[in-house]
């Protein structure tokens, strides 16, 4: 029940840096450091094989063990984190930027433009995303370009839809009309008034989209259409190591743990306490 006396109640603590945000940010910075600086510190070539160390457990020679070819897990994880996180970030950015822009545009202008965008997104949704990715990949198998283009092509729709729906709601509010009467232009309205309203839901969406992208790449590796070996990529590493699950379960889980930490960090950092 809405209480008319709400202002009597002391205002909730509205610090931006809540404990969960802080934890998330620390986690993300650690992961970013591992992905960016890790490859520079680990001087081992992630593709160098040493059959004598096949599936070596974590220990002195190999800090995090070695994979079935005897390649250093630490080096592969660091390089893999750089590639996977970078690629996921790029994919999500490629999906989010047009998705948000189109969404804002459709909510703002409506009319035939909205209808055309609506049509494109509906048809794309009805077209199996897997088909798109597979077909794009067929043009340049094993490379990174079509992979991320195909993923972005399926991921942008969610950003578009959410942005459009949320922005349409915000745009109907009186404060937008008031700002327009006060002489503010469209860019200001969208940037300073609409975007802050839709930011929380978009960051949550982006966090999940990051993990979706990494998992999708691993899924494609599993049907042998992912990146070409010996590229260290977290999703592909899981697929490569999976047959050895009985002998080296920890090795299989390591890339998964990195993905988990990334999603957890993103979730914590973007979590909205008031929601």
């Amino acid at each position, binding site marked *: 029940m809405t209480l008319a006396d709400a202002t009597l109640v002391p205002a909730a603590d509205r610090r931006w840096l809540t404990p969960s945000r802080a934890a998330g940010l620390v986690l993300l910075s650690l992961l970013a450091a591992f992905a960016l600086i890790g490859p520079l510190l680990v001087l081992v070539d992630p593709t160098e094989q040493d059959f004598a160390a096949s599936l070596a457990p974590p220990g002195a020679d190999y800090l995090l063990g070695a994979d079935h070819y005897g390649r250093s897990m630490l080096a592969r994880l660091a390089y893999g984190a750089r590639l996977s996180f970078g690629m996921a970030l790029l994919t999500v950015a490629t999906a989010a930027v047009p998705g948000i822009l189109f969404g804002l545009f459709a909510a703002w202008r409506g009319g035939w433009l909205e209808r055309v965008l609506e049509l494109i997104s509906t048809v794309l*949704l*009805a077209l*199996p995303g897997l088909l798109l990715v597979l*077909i794009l990949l*067929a043009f340049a198998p094993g490379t990174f370009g079509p992979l991320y283009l195909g993923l972005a092509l399926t991921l942008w729709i969610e950003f578009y839809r959410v942005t459009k729906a949320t922005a349409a709601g915000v745009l109907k509010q009186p404060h937008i009309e008031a700002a327009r009467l006060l002489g503010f232009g469209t860019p200001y309205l969208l940037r300073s008034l609409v975007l802050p309203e839709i930011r929380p839901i978009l960051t949550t969406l982006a966090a*999940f989209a990051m993990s979706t992208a990494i*998992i999708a790449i691993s*899924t494609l590796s599993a049907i042998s259409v992912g990146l070409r070996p010996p590229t260290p990529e977290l999703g592909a590493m*899981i697929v490569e190591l999976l047959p050895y699950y009985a002998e080296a379960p920890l090795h299989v889980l390591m890339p998964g743990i990195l993905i988990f930490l990334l*999603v957890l960090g993103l979730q914590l950092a973007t979590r909205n306490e008031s929601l």
Partner: protein
Amino acid sequence: MSRMILARLLQAGLVVLVVGVLCFVLVRALPGDPAMRIAAGRYGPDANITEAAELVRRELGLNQPVLVQLGASLGQLAKLDLGRSLVTGLPITKELRIQLGATLWLSGATLVLSLVLGPPLGLFAGLSRGGWVDRASLGGAIILRSLPPFVLGLLLILFFAMLLGLFPPAGYGTWRDLALPALTLALSLAAVSSRVTRDAVSAVARTPYIAFARLKGLPEPVVMRRHILRNAAIPVVSYLALQAIYLIEGVVVVETLFGIPGIGHALVHAVIARDVPMVQGTALAMGLLFVVVAAGVDLTCHWLDPRPKRI
């Protein structure tokens, strides 16, 4: 209502056209000799593919101009004739009956399981926001979202099939075979739907009409059943529908892992083998399924929420 059905029919028609043309154009535009691909798809990796490809080329008329082939393909589609698979030689409709059927069974079982798992958990989490159920379900959701489906599937096999011996690790035919693949997919789906439910429930629980339902004297279980559930179901249903679409496509790895002759599996093989009619057939089936699901969601939402919609 009739306008909505009309719009959906229009969408269905559009999907058929776009998918038909796009599949043909895209698959044909792909690099590589389709006859070679088809031959490899038919006779396997031990055969003499070059020789077989020549026969395939002659048989399928692949040396005709591409536009003539596109015309023939669309003409067939217009007559609602999906043709025969270039690889197996079986009518596409027969292939789809098996493969779409398998996927529908799997998806159905998944949906039921995820409904049993996700929303109730979300309900508890939403009613005790910040409590341990809420936190644990958030952690669980993140773990499930970070695990590739085949890893999850393998873990489930190890636990339910190897350790407990409850279900077979793979196969297709009886409901027991469906249990583990459906659970694999359902867990991922429930991870998301539990969070959506949790947000919806906690939003609805704070509305003035729920407060009034309590204040007018209804016992809490009645408030829950008659007011919270229905209103919280609206966003959950519309979200679940979108997820169900990802489900139908996302099954490919799970189908391979569990040996289920599903449509995702068929699509991957068809694209690899450049089997245009099969790609068209599977993509059409998925596209139309999307339209049907979307229409179903529209109807459900309309039933759940009588308020007029925008547009």
